[in-house]
């Protein structure tokens, strides 16, 4: 298991380095998100390549003490029940019927209920959430490492991206380096309690070394893909390590 991770990390760094040259040649950067001919997206990719090439990939984000936990605004979607009937139905039964399907490049596709996720060894950490708006907040997150679930589903060697679908219609993805980062978890607990609805109940993603909006709330489905799945230009950077 440990060996597999090392290869993934090394591969990601090599891919990053080779795409540094690839960026100069138009249409030659397969492992990178599309730029749509937009100079801002090219800059995002440059930052992505540079951070992947220059930063040690699996360093842990700073973890804080329990007494550091701060007040925490809930922004973006704060309750999908107001527009999503499926979510409203699940919420009414305290998410007992909620399941998280994992599909795509995995040898054992399947669905995980909240109880299934809670059976896996959990990880709890207290980290700083950095919102793109400029504010920060410290919270404690409890959940199952994404790597555990990906290995349980039998992620295939061809896999390159993990795509997330949410009940509030958001679609996003992360690369394998972040997916296998020890602090990247599927969180079902916040500050010692069940994850509140305003913060993404029943389960949200936590990606601690990117900006807050990569930590998707209200998870609905995970799809593992070999290629970058293009959701279209949202006008926002895909990689937000900065």
């Amino acid at each position, binding site marked *: 298991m440990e060996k597999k991770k090392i290869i993934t990390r090394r591969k990601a760094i090599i891919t990053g380095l080779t795409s540094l040259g690839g960026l100069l040649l138009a249409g030659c950067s397969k492992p990178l998100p599309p730029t749509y001919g937009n100079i801002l997206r090219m800059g995002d990719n440059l930052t992505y390549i540079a951070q992947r090439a220059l930063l040690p990939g699996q360093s842990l984000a700073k973890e804080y003490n329990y007494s550091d936990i701060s007040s925490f605004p809930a922004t973006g979607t704060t309750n999908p029940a107001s527009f999503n009937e499926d979510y409203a139905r699940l919420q009414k039964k305290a998410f007992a019927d909620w399941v998280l399907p994992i599909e795509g490049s995995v040898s054992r596709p399947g669905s995980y209920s909240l109880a299934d996720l809670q059976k896996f060894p959990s990880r709890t950490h207290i980290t700083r959430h950095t919102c793109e708006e400029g504010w920060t907040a410290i919270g404690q997150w409890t959940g199952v490492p994404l790597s555990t679930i990906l290995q349980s589903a039998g992620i295939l060697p061809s896999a390159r991206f993990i795509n997330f679908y949410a009940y509030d219609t958001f679609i996003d993805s992360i690369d394998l380096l972040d997916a296998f980062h020890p602090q990247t978890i599927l969180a079902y607990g916040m500050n010692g309690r069940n994850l509140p609805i305003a913060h993404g109940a029943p389960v949200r993603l936590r990606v601690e070394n990117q900006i807050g909006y990569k930590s998707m709330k209200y998870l609905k489905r995970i799809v593992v893909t070999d290629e970058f799945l293009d959701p279209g230009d949202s*006008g926002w950077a895909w990689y937000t390590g900065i």
Partner: protein
Amino acid sequence: MTHQTIDSEHAPHKRWVKTAHWIITLSFFALVFTGGEMTMVHPRFYWGEVGNDLTPALFELPVSRNYQHGGWEKSVPFSEAVNAPVSAARTYNIFNQNGWGRSLHFLAGWFLLVPGLIYFIAGIFTGHFRKHLWPKAKESSLRLLWNDVINHVRMQIPAATNGPHYGLLQKSSYVVVIFFLMPVIVMTGMTMSPAITAAYPFLLKIFFGAQSARTIHFFASSALVLFLIVHVVMVIKSGFKQQIRSMTVGK
């Protein structure tokens, strides 16, 4: 305006200095513009690691509709403890153009960082810093510096020299910008990056936290804007046309 002969003491600006100067100038404009946009999105500043609408601010700037908007649902405490941290859901549709603002800021940042590093290394190894920027031993006197300040306040500005032959106050201000403000603004910028601070946690230590870094970043950028204004006034006062010519096509 005096016309000075070109000898070794009066060499013109080097081409690499001029190139770095103008690339960094353009990137600085883009950085200030997008930095202003980002300030408008969250015009509150804090000290330490944490700062958000539910925690007290050091100061707030009335620069957008987000200023003290008050669009929050009732706060819910995370526990029964006294003074427990709270959460509240935002109901207000904030001003937010950070999608392009952030990406343009970081793209422009590359055009500051890369030419800046080349300039820095070249400045050391060509002797540019030692010969032209660092005050000479005979200049290192507070009295001389004070006299130069007084002359500037009285708007007695020496005429353009067509090259890197600077007065004492001028040298001092360039030294502060190049060796203090620029490194501070780049490093505090990086201290706001979750990936960079994960790799280099010492950044959070030296700037007292992510929000302190943001606040220092704001003040350093304000100081740089102030420098730019004074710099342009001095360029105008010392002979605008001649200064621009010697900093661009002139020899």
